[in-house]
């Protein structure tokens, strides 16, 4: 008998490979891109590597859609188990449910846009194509793990896998001081955030005795804690530190100070990626952790989170008013928008989550169009990032001016764009959930935001064009000899780009494409929002135990 038992096949953990497919496609694609990037021929690195990155994201998108379609039930019907027993009983560390799938699709779209925007930029050339695009894919993988985590340990694993590639990507324009500074700053601040988070997670584990979200949820809601939730300092401190940790990632005030600096310094494509995908991941985790695991303690965290959301809305909008750098302005605008989305989490109802997810999708559209315009402008002129550089864009480049205008008007919440529908839905959720005061704060925040969004539109259409200053490098007559050496740089790092690059609307068709495509989506779904409203409601239904 003993022998038989010993020779019986060891039953490993059951893994639902199919459900996990979006994640392993990303992992495989990332490794592939990294390896192909090692090949010598130039064309491979310039064309095949970014192409493979796009294909990886497309496959992820396809896999997510397929898995999404397989499980029509509104509630989480399965969990893919990495370590649990063969019957796949919970607790499983990951749940690829509809919430996670929708967010993964969102990350993949943001990833495609980031690849297209950085394709012919400086960053991949200086830090190596394989590394640059590979890291981008791994970062998306981290986000996927982050938002589908059902366990404190996987949660932390996810945040690290998503953050570390981003630290490097921020610093990937290795010859620009601002880029290096941005990477370093993000690394330090991000590490503080992670450390705070892990401390908070530890305390929550200590208080509830489990790392599994569902078990934590039961412990919090059934009053198994000594002294109840409110009388238990350990769980209170834990939840507080978790909020702080997430707030760093979502750039929620008062933990947002790094945002404008990092956004300004990072390569613009990466800024766009961080502004959309990272924010979506952080907000997604807010939903996952607070509206699922900690929903039982809603009375405890909701007032705190509501206050933070209100502060964030005000701070972000006021901060954006005086900015002259577009990327900084978008950074502060992103802070304000994080506040709007956080208020959907606070409500803790299905309607609130639906509104938040919907706003995340809309936020992606509204932001990528302006960022693509900034990328296109930066290709053409050294002050492309500055508001003053946009003057006369309407006459100069209508194909870029319109996406920028539409993006700004949408962010301001003008009807006919997704911004209006998004705010409508959020206000609806807030009023229904008895948070009318937060809805008023949201409205007041939107009013303040008019000040800076409209300034951009006015600059584009109503100011005369100024002559583009001569690019600094060309003016100094620099050549390859003047480039600082980079340790471990790519093969092309020392090649000098001839002249200021091609000019014209269609010199960088992929960037213009991103701008126009997302601007068109902004208008289209602003007029016909129903499909996306319906889509977002799936995610809300994925979380059990909500009204």
């Amino acid at each position, binding site marked *: 008998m003993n022998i038989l038992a010993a020779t019986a096949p060891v039953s490993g953990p059951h893994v639902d490979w199919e459900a996990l497919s979006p994640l392993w496609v990303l992992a495989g694609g990332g490794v592939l891109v990294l390896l192909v990037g090692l090949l010598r021929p130039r064309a491979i690195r310039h064309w095949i590597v970014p192409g493979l990155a796009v294909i990886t994201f497309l496959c992820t998108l396809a896999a997510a859609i397929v898995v999404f379609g397989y499980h029509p039930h509104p509630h989480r019907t399965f969990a893919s188990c990495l370590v649990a027993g063969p019957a796949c009983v919970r607790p499983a560390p990951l749940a690829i449910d509809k919430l996670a799938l929708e967010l993964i699709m969102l990350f993949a779209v943001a990833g495609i846009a980031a690849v297209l925007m950085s394709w012919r930029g400086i960053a991949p050339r200086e830090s190596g194509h394989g590394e640059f695009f590979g890291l981008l894919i791994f970062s998306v993988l981290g986000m996927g793990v982050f938002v589908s985590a059902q366990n404190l340990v996987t949660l932390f694993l996810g945040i690290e896998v998503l953050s570390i590639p981003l630290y490097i990507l921020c610093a990937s324009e290795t010859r620009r001081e601002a880029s290096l500074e941005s990477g370093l700053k993000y690394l330090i601040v991000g590490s503080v955030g992670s450390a705070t988070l892990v401390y908070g997670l530890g305390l929550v584990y200590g208080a509830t005795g489990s790392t599994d979200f569902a078990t934590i949820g039961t412990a919090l809601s059934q009053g198994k804690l000594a002294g109840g939730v409110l009388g238990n300092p350990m769980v209170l401190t834990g939840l507080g530190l978790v909020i702080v940790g997430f707030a760093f990632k979502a750039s929620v005030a008062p933990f947002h100070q790094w945002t404008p600096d990092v956004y300004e310094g990072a390569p613009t494509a990466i800024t766009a990626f961080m502004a959309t995908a990272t924010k979506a991941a952080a907000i997604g985790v807010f939903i996952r952790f607070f509206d699922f695991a900690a929903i039982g303690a809603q009375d405890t965290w909701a007032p705190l989170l509501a206050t933070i959301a209100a502060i964030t809305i005000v701070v972000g909008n006021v901060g954006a008013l005086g900015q002259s750098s577009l990327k900084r302005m978008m950074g502060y605008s992103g802070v304000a928008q994080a506040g709007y989305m956080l208020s959907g989490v606070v409500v803790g109802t299905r309607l609130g989550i639906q509104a938040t997810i919907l706003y995340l999708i809309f936020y992606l559209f509204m932001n990528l169009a302006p960022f693509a315009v900034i990328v296109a402008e930066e290709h053409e002129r050294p002050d492309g990032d500055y508001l003053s550089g946009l003057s006369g864009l309407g006459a100069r480049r209508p194909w870029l001016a319109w996406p920028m205008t539409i993006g700004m008007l949408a962010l301001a919440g003008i009807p006919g764009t997704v911004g209006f529908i998004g705010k409508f839905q959020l206000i609806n959720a807030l009023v229904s959930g008895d948070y009318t005061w937060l809805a008023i704060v949201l409205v007041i925040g939107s009013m303040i935001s008019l000040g800076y969004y409209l300034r951009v539109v006015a600059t584009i259409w*109503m100011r005369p064009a100024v002559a583009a200053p001569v690019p600094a490098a060309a003016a100094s007559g620099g050549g390859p000899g003047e480039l600082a050496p980079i340790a471990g740089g790519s093969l092309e790092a020392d090649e000098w780009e001839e002249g200021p690059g091609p000019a014209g609307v269609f010199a960088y068709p992929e960037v213009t494409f991103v701008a126009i495509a997302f601007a068109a989506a902004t208008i289209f779904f602003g007029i016909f929002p129903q499909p996306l409203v319906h889509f977002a409601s799936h995610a809300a239904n994925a979380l059990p135990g909500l009204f």
Partner: protein
Amino acid sequence: MTLSILIWLPLAVALLAALAPRPLIGQVSVVGSLVTLGVAISFLVRFKLGRAGLQFVTDHLWISSLGIHYKLGLDGLNVVLVLLTTILFSASLLWSAFREWDRPRSFYFHFGLAQSAVLGAFCAQDLALFVAFFDLMLIPFYFMVGMWGSGERVRATTKLVVYTLVGSFFMLAAAVATGVLSANDHQASLNFALTALRGMRLPHASQEWIFLCFAFAFLVKMPLVPFHGWLADGYKSMPIPAVAVFSGVVSKVAAYGFLRIVLPLFPYAAVHFQTLMLLIALVSIMWGTLVAFTTPDARMVVAYSSVAQLSFITLGIFSLRPTGAQGALLQMLNHGLVTAPLFFIVAALAARAGGSERLADMGGIAFRAPVLASLALIITLATLAMPGSSNFIGEFMILLGVFQTKTAISIIAFAGVVGAAVYALRLYITGFHNRTGPRVASRELALADAAVLAPIVLVILVLAFYPQFGLKRSEPSVRLAVAPAQLQSVAPGLTRKVASR
């Protein structure tokens, strides 16, 4: 033919015109606006009299999970205003087509978008749809002032947009709250259609703050004193065709909003704040009249006369009596028909006075331009509500309505009627008569301007003889719209019983 065709036609034409070769853009737009006018007339002809309810209803569920309908319809409240909109936009486009504009494609695109948004706001029968069109209306004007305006245009347009959008955002919050709270109170699913909301009255406390949000948005848009901070810069910088439609119809959307939304949905609050609204209107009449009388700028005379006239309209609406409200509706039509041509006349005067819009630089223009002067005289007499004009009937009904509820206020408001005569005649006399200005080079009305002015004057004359045109169509609907508030003010106990049942 559905109302969708009517409201989207201008935008479609504008997009079509953008494809046309440069010299033809203006002409394509004019033809398109005349077709729109024709469509509006066809609706007017088929409009059945004596019915209070909606006609030509288009109703699709737009966003089902939010209960927002794409619902359009005509009734006595908006059928005449839709006609007014198409008339004034046609006139303004005609006026524009005779002139050269920078970047004409954008110019006519924004004009078309503006017309679609205004028509949409008038026809919308869903609260959320109305708010959407109301906000959307502003965007083309933002661009028109900022790109084709004069003077400090960027500052002016920013001021205009920030003021009005601040109001609009309050309205957005209030509109969502209306839908959500009504649905919660009555255990119904979310529904923003106005007819559905009418059946689900809100509790008094909610009505009060929601009323204030709506009133703020509308008062800023009209604007009434003290919400008129954007007016001077905005009107001064706006290109003439834009200011003609802005003052002619866009400001009316706000007044119309009171009748369409506020009185039927929040009758308790309307009665509660009646005195406040009447006092605001009264102060605004006085202020507008005084400034119109003292300003040295011809365009500002017209601008502030609009403030006074819109205050009269507000006065009529908040008499909360059918007579007053009907007078207000008639006055909306009348005022639109006089204010737009007055702006064109100011432009014509300025063109003859060396480009200056200051009254001091004008004068003596009538000698060499008798036709222009006679057309202007007719319009001026209509503005000052000469007995025999339709404006006289409108103002009379407004004052009669107020007299029935708040006698004291109506007596003071009579002074405003006198004031109108003073500023309107001052504009006419200093512009056309008096000593000839230093740089005046008068000439007869150009055929192009005559083509714009003459048809409008003709409509004014027709209305003077046949004011029942508007009254007959609006009466049943106005009664229906005012009824809840009237009932509330006459017998507050009764409505409570009705509401609780």
